[in-house]
């Protein structure tokens, strides 16, 4: 008898029903949301996309000055601006994905309360939207790298490991997405958690090898930094593009497994909260 109908709405749903087919059916919406974000950003700020460049550039300059000059941090023999730029660019992408995803329910409460579409589309669109910003910042990074290679003949040597780059993007995106979704689900219950996120992400940056190389960490705290899944991502990135960093397959493997677990957990908890989130706002 049930075969007569093609959809059902029930009180309880399976935790593992991730509705991925439905997400696929709504892929046009994903694309249009990305486009909306880009157009809105481009039109709303006076500087427009130039802002994409200014932010990492300023951060790199400040890091070079504070940590490189004043602090005298080692950089694995890599020119300081390049070293920091690599860290800042990758970290920013991850951090943006995480913070924006973590407020997805709050930011879209209005739309979520009026129309149904697979909610997963929203965080996915955030991750893809941020790719545009990341892309422009990568161009800036590559220009800097080119400058150092050609004019300064520095000893940074891009190598075969550069091919891991697409995989690194995927890891960062999914890790940011997964963590963001877990936090977003928690912020529907605890609103003040959202403040902790911005602060927490800042702190987390210092537990990642953004401003120092993994090689300088002594054995006492090294395990903490290595336990951070973003460390292996940034180290691999630096190793591939700049030729010197503490790269290991096991580290990358660890990050991959960590990301996968966080992602699955994130999607499950997100889908659970999404069903009745409207009642709580």
């Amino acid at each position, binding site marked *: *008898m*049930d075969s*007569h*109908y*093609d*959809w*059902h*709405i*029930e*009180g309880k*749903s399976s935790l593992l029903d991730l509705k991925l087919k439905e997400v696929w059916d*709504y892929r*046009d*919406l994903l*694309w*249009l*949301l990305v*486009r*909306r974000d880009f*157009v*809105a950003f481009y*039109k*709303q700020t006076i500087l427009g996309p130039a802002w994409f460049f200014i932010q990492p550039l300023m951060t790199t300059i400040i890091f070079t000055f504070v940590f490189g000059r004043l602090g005298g941090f080692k950089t694995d023999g890599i020119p300081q601006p390049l070293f920091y730029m690599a860290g800042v660019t990758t970290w920013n992408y991850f951090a943006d994905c995480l913070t924006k995803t973590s407020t997805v329910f709050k930011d879209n409460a*209005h*739309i*979520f*309360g*009026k*129309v*149904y*579409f697979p909610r997963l589309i929203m965080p996915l669109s955030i991750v893809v939207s941020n790719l545009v910003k990341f892309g422009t910042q990568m161009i800036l990074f590559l220009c800097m790298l080119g400058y150092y290679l050609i004019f300064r003949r520095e000893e940074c040597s891009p190598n075969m490991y550069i091919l891991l780059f697409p995989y690194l993007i995927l890891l960062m995106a999914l890790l940011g997405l997964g963590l963001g979704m877990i936090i977003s689900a928690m912020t529907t*219950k*605890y*609103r*003040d*958690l959202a403040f*902790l996120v911005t602060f927490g992400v800042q702190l987390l940056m210092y537990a990642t090898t953004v401003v120092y190389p993994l090689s300088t960490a002594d054995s006492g705290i090294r395990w903490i930094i290595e336990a951070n899944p973003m460390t292996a991502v940034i180290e691999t990135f630096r190793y591939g593009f700049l030729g010197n960093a503490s790269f290991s397959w096991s580290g990358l493997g660890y990050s991959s497994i960590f990301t996968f677990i966080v992602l699955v957990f994130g999607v499950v908890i997100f889908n659970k909260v999404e*069903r*009745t989130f*409207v*009642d709580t706002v």
Partner: protein
Amino acid sequence: MSTPFDRNLKISGKFHMSKVVIKVEHLSKAYQLGEIGTGTISRDLERWFAKLRGKEDPYMKLGETNDRTIKGGSDVVWSLKDVSFEIEKGDAVGIIGRNGAGKSTLLKIISRVTAPTSGRISGKGRVASLLEVGTGFHPELTGRENIYLNGTILGMRKREIDRKLDEIVEFSGVLRYIDTPVKRYSSGMYVRLAFAVAAHLNSEILIVDEVLAVGDAQFQRKCLGKMQDASTNEGKTVLFVSHQLGMIQTLCKRCIHLEAGMVHAQGPTADVIKGYLETGAKVDEKDMNDILIDSDLDKPAQIRSLRLVDAEGRSKNEFDVFEKRYLEAEVEVKTDRLSFIFYYYLKKNEEIIVCSHENDRDASRLDIRKKGIYKYRISLPVNIKAGTYSFASIGLGIPNQGAIHALENVLEFNLEEYSFDGSLSGYSNKRPGVILSDSEYAVF
């Protein structure tokens, strides 16, 4: 022995079953009222810490404990309780009920915006729900871009919108500005564009909240027509929630009446509406239509309060077409022997002034009074058709001098065709005209 229940079973045989496109079974929805969490982690930690030290809960309100014991676990409110019904293909079904009857909750669950607590809904065909028009519109995007964004949010594929784009633009009537950001649109244009997208959704089942009550009257009619087409000609199933019974009567063949979260009645629209009107009083508890005005020393006379009442003096803003209705006003006169008149301009659908009344015709009504507050009860025209009315202006004036005090665009009220029977087609709001004409015939 054959009970009515048995007969129902017989009707829902195989042939009948195949026509059902929405089947709601024992649907319930509960909302938690009691404190589950305080909403912030810091407060919850504080509460936990207080408990740890054996102190009392810092966020427990006084009296709350007592209330709890009296109510005995009644901190769950059932917005819907064991609701079951079936809707067949091509039907236009209206859902009526008073505020808090569970209409919106039902709509939200069918639209999948929120999940039910128990029970299930099974359906056949694509569902498009319009709890609002223009969801997701972004002011910076152009009209065209917003059509695509809004359309895909409502479940259309980009390809489908490509095919329908011309039709949508044409329907909205904003062709000239289609490549202008919608932030530059007038509110009317914005609504028209948003509705045009909604009206062209390619779905078998359409769920509509009171979004039709937007835009100007002419566009509203166009939308209503489109919706009617959808159910009668295109075989779409339409589920329509409204408390404007007139609209439900025009659109829907069948009706479901919700009362306190349960199905109170269902069946042909006319029967259900009749039952609906017989249950409960229609008095507006919130007194939304009462206007109170502070005293203004500069004015020699002024209106202090205004409201609409029925023959029994109950405050209302919804009347039957044939029901007597009055405007009650309190007028404060601050100068002795002031001669002034009372006037009102009544308008319909924000368009036409139906009449302008002034009480200067009758010399005995010309007000020459002492200081004080006077209460007026002014009868309003009863020979006008159903629709939304308001007062373009209500005020006090001095002949040949002008207005002393005027209030503009106030006291909106609806006239509904509750007590209508089909034989009065000339009185129906569906026919053109503003007034009800009851011409008498002399046949020679």
